[in-house]
């Protein structure tokens, strides 16, 4: 009896002994072994690439333009919490000042990482070739787009076209090698992608790839590669997009910024506030500090145009829709006092952007003499390629390729000008004058938009001209930089964020930083 009792207890306690399994089975996560089997896997993997660009740590807020504050369409408050912007505005960019620069580095690289994952694996999926290609084409497109952002901002960066070993630390490749990959990826994308994705306007299609390739060629024709043979290629690609007839300009310029995926939208990042993906370059970000909405929210004063940029703007409906020049100051009696931007009653003494205020009805809600509410998050898409860019790329590239503006060159720029409410461009302009007109047109068509103006300044090396016109009311630039062409020439590239430099000890920082 007693022995049985003991044996029972002993047996019970030792029951599990020796049979503890030590193998791992991560039931809650996908792993490479359980992944890239079906087209749905591919769908989710491709969506992951877009996600990297659309998050707050990447392009979802105005930090996406940190390196571009050297341009005349962007400046910021001299104090407040805008250090990172201000340093670039003063051509004194710092690789570490406040982390805003990280957005510009992180977004494209993490997209490239996800794109490489898709490109390395899409063929494993059990689906028809055209289905697979429609997905892989987006990966090629997004990898090219990301490299295009990186190479223009930081110059030489490593060309990585497949998954790397965990400890790999590749060297920086030459700028031309980076462009080679961009061009090759975009050609692949053009071959793979359908001309449109019905019901999914956020997906990059073949036209987006052609439009981007045109832009890439145009940039390659400028600094630093100066491969002028590419003008013709740029003209060819943009022409194909124009000829497709898929896009038309939105008649009312202001509507471009209050609608999503409109008729001129070629490629844009999509946002959804409730879904955790807010777009934050609209609304509070561009609202003056001294404006307070009736709902109590005040402006963040992150960015606004430089005074000269506004004053030199052509008089037209587009300019009226672009700039915000009457500041509304909330009075104790809950009414607003309207004062001009240059009034000493305003905080910044600067004009602001009007086109980024509303968003898709969820940014700043206002009337002419009252601000009802102001919010920092909007569902507005971030337009990366709009049809006017294709037209203006064509105008410039076709003129440069032919050594003189053609009638098609004129037709393209005049389409943009007419929509803006401007007269047609003076006919018979010489090549350089025509090109300058196109560049000027781009400055105001895309004022404040995603660094477009800054990258024109970079490819055409325009800093000296820009500085010459800069108002002395702007943030001061150290004369040791402004008056020294060699120092100024270094400002076209942005320093790589300190953290990433430390993770890549063999890299050299860009000169001047």
């Amino acid at each position, binding site marked *: 009896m007693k022995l049985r009792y003991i044996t029972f207890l002993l047996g019970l306690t030792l029951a599990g002994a020796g049979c503890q399994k030590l193998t791992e089975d991560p039931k809650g996560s996908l792993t*490479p072994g359980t992944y890239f089997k079906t087209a749905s896997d591919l769908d989710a993997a491709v969506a992951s690439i877009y996600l990297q660009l659309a998050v707050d740590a990447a392009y979802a807020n105005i930090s996406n333009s940190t390196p571009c504050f050297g341009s005349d369409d962007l400046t910021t408050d*001299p104090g407040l919490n805008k250090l990172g912007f201000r340093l670039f505005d003063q051509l004194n960019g710092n690789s570490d000042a406040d982390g805003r620069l990280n957005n510009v580095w992180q977004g494209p690289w993490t997209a490239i990482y996800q794109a490489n994952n898709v490109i390395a694996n899409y063929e494993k999926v059990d689906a028809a070739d055209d289905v697979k290609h429609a997905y892989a084409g987006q990966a090629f497109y997004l990898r090219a787009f990301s490299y295009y952002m990186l190479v223009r901002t930081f110059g030489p960066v490593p060309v990585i076209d497949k998954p790397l070993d965990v400890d790999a630390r590749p060297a920086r490749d030459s700028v031309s090698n980076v462009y080679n990959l961009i061009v090759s990826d975009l050609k692949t994308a053009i071959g793979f992608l359908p001309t449109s994705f019905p019901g999914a306007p956020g997906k990059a299609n073949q036209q987006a790839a052609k439009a981007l390739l045109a832009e890439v060629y145009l940039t390659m024709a400028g600094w630093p590669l100066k491969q002028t043979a590419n003008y013709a290629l740029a003209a060819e690609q943009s022409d194909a997009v124009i000829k497709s007839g898929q896009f038309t300009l939105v008649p009312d310029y202001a509507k471009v910024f209050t609608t999503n995926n409109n008729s001129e939208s070629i490629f844009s990042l999509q946002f959804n506030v409730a879904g955790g993906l807010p777009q934050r370059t609209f609304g509070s970000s561009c609202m003056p500090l*001294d404006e307070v909405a009736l709902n109590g929210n005040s402006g963040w004063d992150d960015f606004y145009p430089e005074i000269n940029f506004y004053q030199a703007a052509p008089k037209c409906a587009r300019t009226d829709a672009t700039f915000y020049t009457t500041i509304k100051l909330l009075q104790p009696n809950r009414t607003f006092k309207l004062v001009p931007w240059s009034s000493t009653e305003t905080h910044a003494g600067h004009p602001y952007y009007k086109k980024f205020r509303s968003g898709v009805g969820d940014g700043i809600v206002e009337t002419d003499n009252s601000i009802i509410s102001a919010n920092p998050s909007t569902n507005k898409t971030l337009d990366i390629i709009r049809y006017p860019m294709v037209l203006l790329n064509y105008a410039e590239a076709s003129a440069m390729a032919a050594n003189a503006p053609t009638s098609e060159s004129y037709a393209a720029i005049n389409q943009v000008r007419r929509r803006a409410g401007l007269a047609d461009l003076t006919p018979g302009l010489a090549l350089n004058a025509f090109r300058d007109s196109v560049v000027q047109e781009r400055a105001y068509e895309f004022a404040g938009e995603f660094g477009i103006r800054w990258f024109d300044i970079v490819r055409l090396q325009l800093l000296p001209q820009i500085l010459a016109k800069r108002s002395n009311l702007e943030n001061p630039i150290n004369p040791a930089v402004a008056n020294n062409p060699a120092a100024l020439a270094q400002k076209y590239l942005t320093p790589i964020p300190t953290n990433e430099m430390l993770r*890549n000890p063999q890299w050299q920082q860009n000169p001047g930083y």
Partner: protein
Amino acid sequence: MQRLVLMLVMAFVFLDVHAQQHTVKGTVTDEGNQPLPGATVRVKASTVSAITDASGNFQINTGEQASPVLIVSYIGYVEQEVTVNGASVTVRLKTDAHSLNDVVVVGYGVQRKRDVTGATSTVRSEEIVKRPLVRVEQALQGTTSGVQVASNNGQPGAGLSVRIRGVNSITGSNEPLYVIDGYIGGSVESLNPNDIESMEILKDASATAIYGSRGSNGVVLVTTKSGKEGKTRVDFSTWFSKASVPKQLDLMNAYDFARTVNTQFQLSGNPAAFTDAQLQELQSKGGTNWQKELQQSPWIQNYQLSVSGGNTGVRYMFSFNHLDQPGLILNQYYKRTTLRSNVDVKLNDKMDLKVNVTALFPQNRNTQYPGDLIDPFAQATQWDPTSPVRNADGKYILSAQYGSIQINPVAQASNQQVDNSATNLTGTGVFTWRILPGLSFTSNNTYEIQWSLNQQLFGKETSLGMSGRDFASQGNTRYRSYQNSNFLTYRGDFGDHSLTLTALYEQQNRRNINSNAQGVNLISYVNGYYNIGLGSTQLVSSGYWADALQSYMGRVNYAYKNKYLLTAAVRVDGSSHLLDKYSTFPSLALGWNIAKEGFMQDNRIFSDLKLRASFGVTGNQAVNPYATIPQISTGAPYYFDGSKPTVTTPLGSPVSTSLKWERTEQYDAGLDAAFLKGRLTFTVDAYHKKIKDLLYYFQAPFYNSGATYARNIGSVENKGLEFALGGTPISTKKLTWSSNLIASINRNKVVDLGGLDNIVVNNIGSPQSNVSILKIGQPLGEFYGYKFLGTWKAKEAAEAALFGMKPGDAKYVDVDGDKKYTAADLQTIGNGTPKFTFGFINDIKYDNFTLSFMLQGATGYQIYSQTLAYVWGGLGDARNATTQDALDIWTPTHETDNPTFSKSSTNFINSSRYVYNASYMKLKNLSISYHIPESLLSKVKLRNLEVYVSGQNLFTVTSYPGYDPEITNATNAITQGLEMGVIPNPRTYTFGLRAGF
């Protein structure tokens, strides 16, 4: 527990009581008149002895002596000699707080303290009940050498950081391993401090190596109380504490703030923000003190009831505890109810069964603020004092025009609800079978299960609501853990040799399943978080992890003539986390009881003297489950048409498959001495710890995902000395003064980083710059940034101009001399690892009064304070200065080192300007208690009644200008010393009572 074990041991060495002519009967009790079963009674100058029974009674033959002298001893009590003048006697033994003869729990068994070869310290229940403790770790603070305890966070219910012999891991936890009644890795939160009988802190590797891959941070063995034989005892205690934030930051009032905003704007070329009329109005009305608006001074309540008792067959201890702790800021609380049932059953002569069951019901609201610049507590230091809290219509004002961009901190704190509650059940069954004399088998089985519920509500008037992401959510987690330990112990004495052998097989497995449902933009919030379906967007997620450990351990304890001691052990741990499953952890320790040597027998100084030396290898399980398997996570959805979600599955970081546990090799040498019959005790230990295969969650370059991946990258070493001095300087009938001083010195150094010179570490929270660095040759917790030199002075105008700056602008060290402040000028600017910590505890007893106080402190380190940076404005979300120091900025006629507001100046957040000396000494506790005299108590049938008043954190000696030098965001060893808006430790005034029936 110790007594129980001792009784069992004594049962084996039972000595016959010889019945002869003269017999003395008697009773042995403790100071509280409770019977002491198992006490030894000897007749002086004879070999006759007896052991007291369950009621503390004994009967002994004293031979023919007229007035025999009895020597009564019991482990843990002062030995006493009594002369007997009659047929019966009652002996009351005093507890001996400084005895070297105690039995200590050593893990998988017990040992006499004099046989222990490892470095260990003990904290007993008497020490624990003395203070109003909320968390068990508080009992370790200032009481044990080599143990540095900091209350990093003043949020209700917050855990404390406990570091035994410095920090070892930069990735894994540095918290010690808690073993609760044999259950490894038990949660200390689940413990009611009043249920603890004793805690053994195992510090050196010979003591901890028996816990193998989990031992490297030291081990705390917790033994809960057991019932004692005798009549039922009912104990009730309660305390009430009034808590408050001890110190406020010196921030500007509305008038000064407004003036300073004007100055700031004018200096950067903008018009003044406030008119003279507005300034006058602010001056007369005062404005808002946000610190005051957000803070509260709550009452904390604690109730404890226990019932214990038993007979020779069954002993029991049941307890109930309830704690209610509101926070120091609005809408924050922690509540905890614990129930415990500890039952010991003697199954038969050879078998015992112990069953401990606890149920824990914690509940908290908004206690999870991470300590971040967007927390309400930090925001209160950055918010615009010219803004009222509410509008005229009574609604919260949500944003202000000046100061911080973030939401009104009072609105945020009041309107957000993050509610956690859990049900935790832990049952431990210990079966002991004494198979043969000397040979016993023990099986310890614990099953823990926990259901947690996390409910969140962020409505329209919260920061998320303001950005259009108001939501309600509910998360459920079910966790279970099972441990089965089986060990055989053999004890034998062979002449001068005594031997104990232990062999263990142990297995443990854990599993966690969770799900979370979130509704965004609810059409109505009237149902709070109870109706998530009202959300216009629904988000769901779920997760799973499981792991397992299988271990073998063998240990030999050998003693020769009780003088020369040896302990050797090997543990083999097999883990599911690694590809190479099994790792081995050996240890060896030697001890020499010098006091037992012949040449020491006549000395009058030492009553005990022991030398110890040990070496051992332990591990740290810093590798997470599945770390060797590349993960594809499920990310936030993407919306290709702006509205329809598409699932995303981003590829995680690449993984390193050759992962190993961190291995700590530790050498220790120690000396234990007792003088003047134990009235003075002294322990010193020196150690050297080297942690190899240091595991780090390395951030991959962004081209390789930018995510972190585990990698064994290098090594760190800790060298240190620790001292404990205990004594009873005064011991008279009326007055006793006992005192304990502990001190620890630790030097920590990064030795190797796998080929890299340094690693700059991403910050915790939302700050935008990196201030932490791992650097070879430097301790962990190093800060990295620009070295601040104050301001450029008028006479330096020409030099400043080369930097594009003007007098009054911030000046930093330009390391590379290029007349620019760039990343090349970054350098180490301070360190957050304390070099020296100490604690000093005193108990002064006079008659029925006891005065106790405890001083505790740390020196030799700095704090980088983000809070003190942001109050200057111009950083993060802080637009304008709020600190009073901003009234003393540089001007041409008053050249201070506070930079002026300037377009050309750069206020780097990662600068030594925000690094402060954090050395401090605190009066952690001061209490006066009064024992109601027994003469009065017996009339009302009370066994014991004590009332006390006490104060905690009454004063702090420090030059640190922030809230509290003890608090930091020390989430890991690298970022220790960073402070980013953590709620400080409260100052509390407590009164309480303890009653026994």
